[in-house]
């Protein structure tokens, strides 16, 4: 990544060669315009805790928010492969994170989001919103149902597609993480700029599939989430 084209100007204040520089994914136009040029700066010990969030108030959830296969309880299911995604959310030491909020969003079967800014021309599914939430239980466990999202074309001019993925955000207390879950054996992972930046750690981002025995569900997916790295949980609940 070192020889990427950098604008020709003075980087004299980039005096932290040992600190991480965020990388630009290949052919990722958003990244090419936004990722900071200079490495991240170290935080002196005296200022560290001030960088940890403290979220003491989370929303109350409505019934059925963790079933994305329906727009409301009792409504018909959306089209596509029905998934039941479940797992634990723990800190790096395996401590379960209780009562933290998981926000979930994904495209529909045809690879289109219901978000107003999605330019995709694929069809919408009247039975699929694609946004849901769930709180972890006392053992730090979560589960939600959704539709297996379709791949979608992000760079038509170079025919680059995103692999199927489910967006996940975790927050509560000082815990937080913004991530995406991917699917095993998806050939598009090999050309996804974001996924390629993970290197070997990309294996942690892939859910484990098995045939479901749950009624109304086709495939179970196990995806355990560990909050750590840049996102440690530093305040006890």
């Amino acid at each position: 990544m070192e020889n990427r084209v950098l604008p020709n100007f003075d980087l004299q204040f980039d005096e932290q060669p040992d600190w991480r520089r965020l990388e630009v994914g290949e052919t990722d136009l958003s990244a090419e315009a936004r990722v900071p040029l200079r490495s991240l700066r170290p935080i002196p010990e005296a200022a560290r805790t001030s960088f940890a969030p403290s979220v003491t108030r989370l929303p109350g959830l409505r019934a059925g928010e963790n079933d994305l296969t329906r727009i409301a309880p009792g409504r018909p299911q959306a089209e596509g492969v029905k998934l039941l995604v479940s797992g634990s959310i723990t800190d790096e030491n395996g401590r379960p994170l209780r009562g933290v909020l998981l926000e979930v969003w994904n495209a529909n079967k045809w690879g289109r989001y219901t978000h107003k800014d999605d330019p995709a021309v694929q069809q919408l599914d009247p039975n699929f919103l694609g946004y849901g939430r769930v709180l972890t239980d006392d053992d730090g466990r979560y589960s939600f149902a959704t539709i297996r999202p379709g791949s979608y074309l992000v760079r038509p001019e170079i025919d680059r597609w995103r692999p199927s993925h489910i967006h996940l955000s975790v927050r509560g207390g000082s815990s937080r993480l913004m991530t995406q879950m991917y699917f095993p054996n998806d050939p598009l992972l090999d050309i996804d700029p974001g996924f390629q930046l993970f290197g070997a750690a990309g294996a942690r981002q892939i859910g484990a599939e098995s045939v479901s025995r749950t009624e109304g569900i086709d495939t179970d997916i196990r995806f355990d989430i560990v909050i750590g790295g840049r996102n440690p949980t530093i305040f006890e609940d």
Partner: protein
Amino acid sequence: METENYTCEDTVGPYYAPAFLDDDRQNLTNFYDYLVRPKGDVIIVQGAILDRDGNPVKPVLVEAWQADANGRRRTSATLEDADLDPWFDGYSRHYCDDGTFELTTIMPGAVPPCRESPSARAPYITLNLYMDGTERLATQIFFEGRPENESDPLLLSLPEPLRPRLLARRMPDNSDGVPVYRIDLKLRCADETPFFEDRFG
């Protein structure tokens, strides 16, 4: 040596749901519409998030947190402290559709040395930005002209020429007489905003 086992950060992408924000607030000066008010001076902090070409980045999910007027921050460890303002929770999250953000809040106090902060700190607001194409970006902003800036450990950790990039500048008061501070956060350019590696331990 610890083995890395954590789930990797990934970009938020362009399609986060504004509806997830629920009653997360852009105004921290009213306590969920009760007739109680936090102590301190109301201010507005506003700015833009600009990309390499000076274009506003949209959308951006902005998280902000800060201390109360006494310089105390609400965490699970400080909830019972007598000098913590009970009517100020100091946490904001909002979805910036047009590349600009505006937070109505209380001028944070200078932080005295305390259990959570072993060194004194100048008044600051922590900002976290989530946008398509990059992982979370974390920084802190300060207020132009505050004498505490001269000894703040985070500001002092930066080469001197970079420090002004974290200073919000005083603008004319708004039509209600509320002081306005402004800072633009610049990405991938010659005078880009410094961002911090907030990995602990």
